[in-house]
């Protein structure tokens, strides 16, 4: 469990983090997202006491990290992968860290095996690739059997197998009641891994919500309609001030209305509907939209994913664009709010690929505090 309260960090004039409050619950995987320079790494360093906050404070498992008796058992952290002396072997690096807490060399070898570094354990780390360094960093983080894991971009440089391994590892650890706080720029991976999402931009909180809420709220308000009365519907909807766009297969994309609302309206007015589908949006799209205004470093217009939707991309028509579904401010959901029950809508919608992760609607009820050693995956 991690709590940040009104956290502010300034480097000279530059504000890295400003008034940031959030909490990361145990038994969950919480994704920490934001553009480059948003303050993610700084926030993680503040939690670990490596940087001192200008104001505000952070607590780990209800205590200040500095005052914990067994820091490695409280928190395992992977910050930059290359936080290692290049002249030391992987095993000796881990032995030195383990020695601070009286962790046995047996446990060191166990962790080396777990992260798949057994073959190179006696090689000096200076020759390690990024992927191997990441694995070594993960090994260091896991050494003390920690209650909380703080991982900054842990899957950078990992091969697909490694990415899948990290995903299953963190889910497994969360299922044991541990707290996982993980930052990444790979949205598809985050959508698969995280139960909760904290998005920051320019050091400020943009979103703190359950992943399923975020996607449902953002998605539920764009509906796709196929109807012989499409022209009438389009007129009526645009009269009500909502935005309507035509797709090239003569369907309507309507934003600002739920499928329930439109369905009732159709029944009242006698419109025939062949198809009425809430459009499932990807975490990436939602993320881009939410952080668009706070990008620290713009890579140029083509980098924005908010352009034409995939089904419109070949159209010769002017690019179809749905209006922003929600403003960032409206998205801030209190972290401790129970996930709204969206069962009916859920049942109506067929699974649509990646985003229908097993997390939907099944948050762990009682975080278990099982303390067993991790065997293989």
């Amino acid at each position, binding site marked *: 469990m991690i709590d940040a309260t009104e956290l502010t960090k300034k480097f000279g004039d530059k504000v890295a983090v400003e008034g940031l409050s959030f909490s990361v619950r145990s038994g969950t995987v919480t994704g920490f997202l934001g553009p480059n320079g948003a303050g993610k790494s700084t926030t993680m360093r503040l939690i670990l006491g490596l940087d001192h906050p200008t104001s505000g404070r952070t607590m780990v498992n209800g205590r200040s990290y500095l005052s914990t008796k067994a820091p490695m058992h409280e928190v395992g952290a992977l910050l930059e992968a290359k936080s290692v002396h290049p002249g030391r072997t992987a095993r000796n690096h881990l032995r030195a860290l383990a020695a*601070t807490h009286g962790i046995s060399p047996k446990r060191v070898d166990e962790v080396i095996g777990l992260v798949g570094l057994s073959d190179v354990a006696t090689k000096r780390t200076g020759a390690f690739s990024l992927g191997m360094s990441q694995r070594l960093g993960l090994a260091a983080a896991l050494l003390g059997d920690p209650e909380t894991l703080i991982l900054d971009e842990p899957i950078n440089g990992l091969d697909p197998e490694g990415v899948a391994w990290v995903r299953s590892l963190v889910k497994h650890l969360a299922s044991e009641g541990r707290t996982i706080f993980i930052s990444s720029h790979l949205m598809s991976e985050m959508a698969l891994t995280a139960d909760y999402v904290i998005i920051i931009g320019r050091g400020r909180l943009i979103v703190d919500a359950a992943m399923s809420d975020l996607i449902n709220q953002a998605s539920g308000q764009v509906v796709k309609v196929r109807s012989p009365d499409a022209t009438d519907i389009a007129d009526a909807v645009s009269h009500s001030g909502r935005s309507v766009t035509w797709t090239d297969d003569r369907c309507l994309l309507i934003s600002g209305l739920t499928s329930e609302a439109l369905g009732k309206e159709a029944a009242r007015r006698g419109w025939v509907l062949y198809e009425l589908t809430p459009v499932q949006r990807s975490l990436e799209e939602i993320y881009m939209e939410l952080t668009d205004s706070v990008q620290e470093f713009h890579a140029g217009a083509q980098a924005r994913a908010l352009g034409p939707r995939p089904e419109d991309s070949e159209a010769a028509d002017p690019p179809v664009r749905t209006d922003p579904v929600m403003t960032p401010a409206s998205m801030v959901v209190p972290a401790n709010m129970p996930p709204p029950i969206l069962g009916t809508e859920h049942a109506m919608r067929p699974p649509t690929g990646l985003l229908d992760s097993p997390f939907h609607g099944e948050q762990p009820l009682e975080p278990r505090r099982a303390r067993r050693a991790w065997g293989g995956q």
Partner: protein
Amino acid sequence: MATIETTPTRTYKLTFFRIFRSEWIKLFTLRSTWWILALTVVANIGISIALASILKWVESEAAAHAGVGTRPGGAPVTIGPGDLGTLSGLVVQSCGFVGQLVFIILSILVITNEYSSGMIRSTLTVAPRRGRVLVAKLLVIAILCVLVFSVSMAIGWWGGYQIAHGMVGLDVVLTSTTSMRVLGGFIAEMVLIAWMCFGLGAWIRSTAASIGVAVGLLLVLPMIITIFTNTFANAGTLSGWRKWLVDGSAYLPTNAGNAVTADPVSDTAILQPWQGLVVLAVWTVVVLIIAGIITKRRDV
């Protein structure tokens, strides 16, 4: 649903002794530590034996030309008892050449290495109380310093004795007060200087800059001032800033350290041995306090 709260068994715990062990492992899992320390011991012993051999040669040459001036028109040279100093002083002087420089650099690297490689983030994540980490490192340096110099001096003294025993000019008594002061004082001086250099490293964080400052303060500055001092000494009595410079230079860390092992001790010396030790200790403590405050306050 009933939940069973199992309290995790906390066998893992951070203690000072364990941080010390970790620091010890860190130092000795770098290959460079091994060979640099081995070379230091070999150099210390080698130089001690070489110097003893040279003195023995000097004495035998003098004896062969007894009564004959070494310089044209000079006075006859006769070497009396103790004229060539003590064997302990010789050993200390020998160990000072390479040993001091090695420990200046080694104790700086112990900390600046961590900053340059990023290892410091790993270190301070697992041991977030920074003061304790610094003290553990100081302890490692001190133990290493005592070990390396004890071994070098013991073997160097023994080797020197094999060559020099029976010499008239060299005092080869180990157990005299002077001998014990010189040998013990040298180890204390080396530990204090190593600690001060570690403090500079923790304060400055960059390897190159720290070594620059340490070498400048400990080796170059005293040398430059000696040049001035010698010039003034030729000019007769000193007054004003010249006197202040000459007197003040005695308080530089290296010169204060040299006072500790001075042999023989001059009555007119500005610092007596124990005063030299105190002055050096004050330098070290001041640098370490600044280093401690900066390490605690600054982000890593």
